[in-house]
């Protein structure tokens, strides 16, 4: 569908869409207020009618950290690259929870908002996009607890901490890309809703959150392991924040970036292909 602006009125052309266009950027920019309001709605509504409210954004990673520290760090004695285990796991859990929350919310976004989809036109991609944006806030709310832990354990970031915004961006891009795939599939197959919690759990164990990636020593396995873009992201986030880096891990950054972008682009293409059927099938 093409929309062009003429001085007097907006002319809309309605016809069957063709081709492999990835995303209509112009239209997306025009919908920025909608993106803003949907994000704002998700944020406003998220902790309504809870006693602890936004504190949940902190409690969740901290409780997981406590559980991991007791079972993995304490009982199982999982090595943590020489970093105190609670700090080690929390530094992995924060970017991971950003990823997981974004992915979960984005994946369910279309079915949750089905009444909007069947009744009104807007670029459908704003739904997964705004749920990802709303998930970022929790990450920043939980951030100070990590800083507090670093002070407690006397760890400070070095110059490579400048890479952190990029790691956050990679996390969001990957989550959004996977979210595009799943949200579009969720329209057709409600099975997705059941698969996601399991998949997130599996994915977390395939990411060095509870253990250091040094445990994977077989080079063949290592290659497969590194196909998970979150491996590079979590390792990078942790190492740069805790000042462990001695040099920029160019290879890992490039590799993770390529895979994230592949996921994003394929997600956009798939979403676009399915988009026109959403209102009929949801």
């Amino acid at each position, binding site marked *: 569908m093409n929309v062009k602006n003429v001085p007097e009125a907006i002319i*809309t*052309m309605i*016809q*069957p869409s063709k081709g492999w266009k990835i995303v209509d950027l112009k239209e997306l920019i025009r919908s920025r*207020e909608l993106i803003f309001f949907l994000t704002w709605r998700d944020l*406003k509504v998220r902790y309504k009618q809870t006693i602890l409210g936004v504190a949940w954004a902190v409690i969740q990673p901290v409780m997981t950290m406590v559980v991991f520290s007791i079972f993995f760090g304490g009982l199982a004695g999982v090595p943590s690259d020489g970093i105190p285990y609670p700090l080690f796991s929390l530094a992995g859990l924060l970017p991971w929870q950003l990823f997981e929350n974004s992915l979960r919310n984005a994946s369910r976004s279309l079915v949750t908002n089905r009444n*909007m*989809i069947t009744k009104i*036109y807007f670029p459908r991609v704003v739904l997964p996009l705004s749920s990802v944006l709303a998930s970022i806030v929790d990450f920043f709310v939980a951030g100070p607890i990590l800083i507090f832990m670093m002070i407690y354990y006397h760890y400070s970031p070095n110059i490579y901490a400048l890479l952190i915004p990029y790691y956050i961006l990679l996390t969001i891009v990957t989550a959004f890309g996977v979210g595009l795939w799943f949200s579009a599939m969720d329209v057709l197959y409600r099975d997705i809703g059941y698969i996601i919690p399991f998949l997130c759990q599996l994915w977390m164990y395939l990411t060095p959150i509870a253990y250091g990636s040094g445990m994977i020593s077989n080079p063949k396995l290592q290659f497969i392991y590194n196909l998970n873009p979150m491996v590079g992201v979590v390792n990078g986030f942790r190492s740069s924040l805790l000042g462990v880096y001695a040099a920029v891990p160019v290879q890992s950054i490039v590799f993770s970036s390529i895979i994230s972008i592949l996921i994003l682009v394929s997600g956009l293409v798939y979403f676009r292909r399915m988009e026109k059927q959403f209102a009929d099938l*949801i």
Partner: protein
Amino acid sequence: MPQNSVIVSHIGKRYRIGAAPASYRTFRETLIDTLTKPKKRLHGKMTDANSFWALKDISFNVEKGMALGIVGRNGAGKSTLLKILSRVTEPTVGSAVISGRVGSLLEVGTGFHPELTGRENIFLNGAILGMKHGEISRKMDEIIAFSEVEDFIDTPVKRYSSGMYLRLAFAVSAHLEPEILVIDEVLAVGDAEFQRKCLGKMSDVANQGRTVLFVSHNMSAILRLTQETIVLEKGNLVMQAPSGEAVDYYLSHGFSQEGFREWTPDEIPAEAAPFVPVAIRILNYQGDISDTVRSIQPFSIEFEYRLDEPITGLRVGIYLISVRGEFIFTSFDVDDSARFEEFSVRDKGTYISRCVIPADYLNEGRFVLGVNASTFKIKRFFHDEQALVFHVDGTGAPGTQWPEPRTGLVRPRLSWEIEAKN
């Protein structure tokens, strides 16, 4: 030369049967299909066998500033057409050009979130409908005033009564001020007072020179609000004409002329289950099915239906409606409280509810018969306000010695007395 707001050319929409909106596939089915029948995939070609055309080759224009009515029976494709024009769904073939912002009252309250306050929902809903932030702020007071919920505007809408919720939702939609307004049966909701307000707002819109597309079953509203009307029949556009002519055509051609109407499975919505309408028939004084009855003789109306499950508290009834859409009466088979007790639970099976319309009751002319099957305040199983049209022949009715049409819908034989006072 008048400017066209909407130009629709050769639009068609094909739906897949089975994967139609009502049902969706599970992952397992697709996996199994993909493995066992690699060629027959979900996204394979649609064939005539597994799909149907909800709309076929529809072309029409709407001039700028004109109100166009769209009429047709259930399943004729009216809603599909509106969905295509408001871009909710894509046409399978054909194209349309629309000049101006399209706002639709299909989406009253879309995106409302129960946890947000009235004011917050106005912003959210406004953004969803395509209003700019500044525009919403500017109209905020006006919207709140129109909705009549000032006192509760900072209360979460989950605490609202359904009427308040609806008024607020309509208030936002009504202030969208689109160049083209699309309305689908919004009048079916809300109380009488609110419906009047909606109608008023719509005629305002129509009078402001904006383009209106109006789908309704209410012929009097169509006649009052629109200048031209298109008639859809089974996905085809059969007529575009001035509204009076089109409504006349619709009422005389859109219906079965044989004095009975049978429902085919595709005309019965899924939510009607377990109630299945079978047929409605007009029986004349002699007991024969007929589309014409005489005013001076009683006639009966029978509605046959099937229950696939027992229903408690069911009432099955008819509406008698004038061709202008005014209701003459509504009557249910268990209006008599003793009979309601007797039939408090209706087992599964086939039933006929029959009633007799007395002699000397209706004026000559054409009448529309509607049906309703519901339980009070619980569920409306089935509802068709235009099940059948029939004629009443006035021969021999009071006053027919003067060959002039009588105004009024009824023509009772009253017992007059003439008293000479001198």
